[in-house]
């Protein structure tokens, strides 16, 4: 087990190398002039274009340029992001916690409600509970995320004023940047609790709810379906009949026996969804003006901020590998038959 985890982690640099090189190679398809234009803010300075190209060696061989990027990346320097106006590593440090926070809240909601609705749907097959759950699931599939997001924003902020957009309110901004507020983890929800500041906690949570619900819906619909079919399959198995024949209460039959087996595909789905959320909450972050890493990635891509693009994709690749590793480890916790062998 430990050896497996170590081996997978050792494989990580290889994945990162592959991903970043591929991306770097693609960005080289753009002419040096285009790549240099990012550094020129004013049309009157166009004459300096050649100077920039020379300074950064943009005409060099692709391997040489990649080598330069890699060399500084290995020393922890991912370059300066022109689009975010700060070093790439600082941008990641600043924006990633907010996205992780959003993704965790979302995935918790998805798993909790998905498993719950899916189980009820399977146990009450063809009854009204099942019909309702299936209708919600189809609805969730059909509703585009931007439509749902805007509708929720319109109603819960525009009409009711409950859940405002953005990452936090101005009052919170003042508090968290004051010297009295210690940033322990970078995750505002946790930091607020560690500082014992419930007002900040509530404010951050309030800003999280709408984007989380919006992100939830599609994954939730899928989760209900997977859990329902998995549960139905397990409920028809022989060991469930044995459990009933032993005289176990129906609750124990459904949850302790069938449920534990049915949850296995949910783990796969949840980890895929979680990784997807970390890199791809762009639309939602834009709609809700949420200060996450997805928006950083998109802005970097739009402005041809190559340092930003490289940093962002490196981060996504690392998260992807770690996320998959986590789901493998989770499997072994649930299913004893899966022994990670050497």
């Amino acid at each position, binding site marked *: 087990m430990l050896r497996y985890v170590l081996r997978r982690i050792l494989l990580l640099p290889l994945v990162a190398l592959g991903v970043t090189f591929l991306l770097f190679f693609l960005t080289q398809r753009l002419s040096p002039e285009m790549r240099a234009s990012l550094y020129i803010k004013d049309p009157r300075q166009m004459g300096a274009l050649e100077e920039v190209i020379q300074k950064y060696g943009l005409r060099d061989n692709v391997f040489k340029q990649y080598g330069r990027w890699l060399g500084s990346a290995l020393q922890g320097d991912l370059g300066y992001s022109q689009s975010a106006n700060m070093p790439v590593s600082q941008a990641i440090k600043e924006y990633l916690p907010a996205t992780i926070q959003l993704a965790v809240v979302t995935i918790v909601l998805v798993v909790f409600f998905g498993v719950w609705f899916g189980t009820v749907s399977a146990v009450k097959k063809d009854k009204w509970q099942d019909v309702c759950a299936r209708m919600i699931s189809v609805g969730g599939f059909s509703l585009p995320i931007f439509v749902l997001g805007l509708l929720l924003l319109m109603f819960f902020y525009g009409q009711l004023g409950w859940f405002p957009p953005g990452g936090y309110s101005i009052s919170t901004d003042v508090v968290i940047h004051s010297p009295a507020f210690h940033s322990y983890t970078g995750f505002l929800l946790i930091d607020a609790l560690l500082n014992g500041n419930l007002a900040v906690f509530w404010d951050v949570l309030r800003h999280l709810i709408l984007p989380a619900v919006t992100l939830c819906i599609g994954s939730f619909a899928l989760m209900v379906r997977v859990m329902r079919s998995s549960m139905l399959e397990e409920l028809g198995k022989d060991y469930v009949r044995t459990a009933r024949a032993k005289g176990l209460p129906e609750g124990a039959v459904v949850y302790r026996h069938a449920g534990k087996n049915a949850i296995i595909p949910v783990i796969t789905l949840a980890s895929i969804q979680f990784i997807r959320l970390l890199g791809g909450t762009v639309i939602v972050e834009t709609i809700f003006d949420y200060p996450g890493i997805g928006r950083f990635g998109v802005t970097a891509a739009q402005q041809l901020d190559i340092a930003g693009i490289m940093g962002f994709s490196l981060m996504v690749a690392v998260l992807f590998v770690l996320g998959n590793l986590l789901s493998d480890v989770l499997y072994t916790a649930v299913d004893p*038959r899966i022994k990670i062998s050497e």
Partner: protein
Amino acid sequence: MNACQDIVLSVEDLRVSFCNEEGKTEVLHGLSYQLPKGKVLAVVGESGCGKTVHALSLLKLLPPGGEITSGNVSYKGENIFALSAEELRKLRGSRISMIFQDPMTSLNPIRTIGSQLTETILAHKACSKLQATARAVRLLKKVGIENARKRLNEYPFQFSGGQRQRIMIAMALCLNPDVLIADEPTTALDVTIQAQILKLIKDLQRQSGMSAVFITHNLAIVADVADEVLVLYGGYCVEQAPVQTLFARPLHPYTQGLLHSLVSLKRKEEHLPAIEGYPPVPGSCLSGCPFAPRCPQATPKCREALPALQEKHGHKVRCWLVK
């Protein structure tokens, strides 16, 4: 069987149907029998004759689509079908237990056998987890699992087929039930293991004096374990008699055919005799004796009307040819 003995399980006119898109199909057409204390009744028949369906319906464990359309099953005079869900739950596994055909799939693959054993005990008995574990260890030793305490923490996939069936037996017997329903408990095992498992069930049954319904298609097993035999064909009881009587003087042509197709060391034959044809598809035979299409002695009357189950000296048979 003697009427003055205590009857623990009594089945009266049990009828079971299955629903599908084409409608309802009756697969068990009014089965009746009584099981006295300490006796073993073997229910014999080919695949699809309703053996397993009958076993499952005794404890209302039929799969979705299956429905008990009429009849009674009573345990010590109490109608099982009239019990509430909670009363039925208390009966299952403690007073009436079941062993299933396939030990490979009948245990939960991702829970330790210890937890599966102790939860059965805890579901019926007010005792501590420690006491339940101690009991589980004793039971495992009793059914011949070595190193029982250590093996409680292992999962089903770490046991062989025979061992898993031993665990199933331990699980079924952990609350000293009065009735054991064994649904082809040895079918999925290879022959040498079959004999061991059979001996184990037989020994445990005799020690504890419990009654058993033994469902099988294997007549050799019947001769070995049963006191009384009930032959099922196409969902009907076609013959029922004490085991010696049935083997010595089978009356129904189907039973005769079954016994004739047994391997004998005395006869020398090139081919094993078999009954021609196939058992009826459930729902297909609407009138007449279900065995008539395959019966070598069938008369036109057999194809027209279903014979009644008649009884003479405790030997029941459903055939027009028996007078």
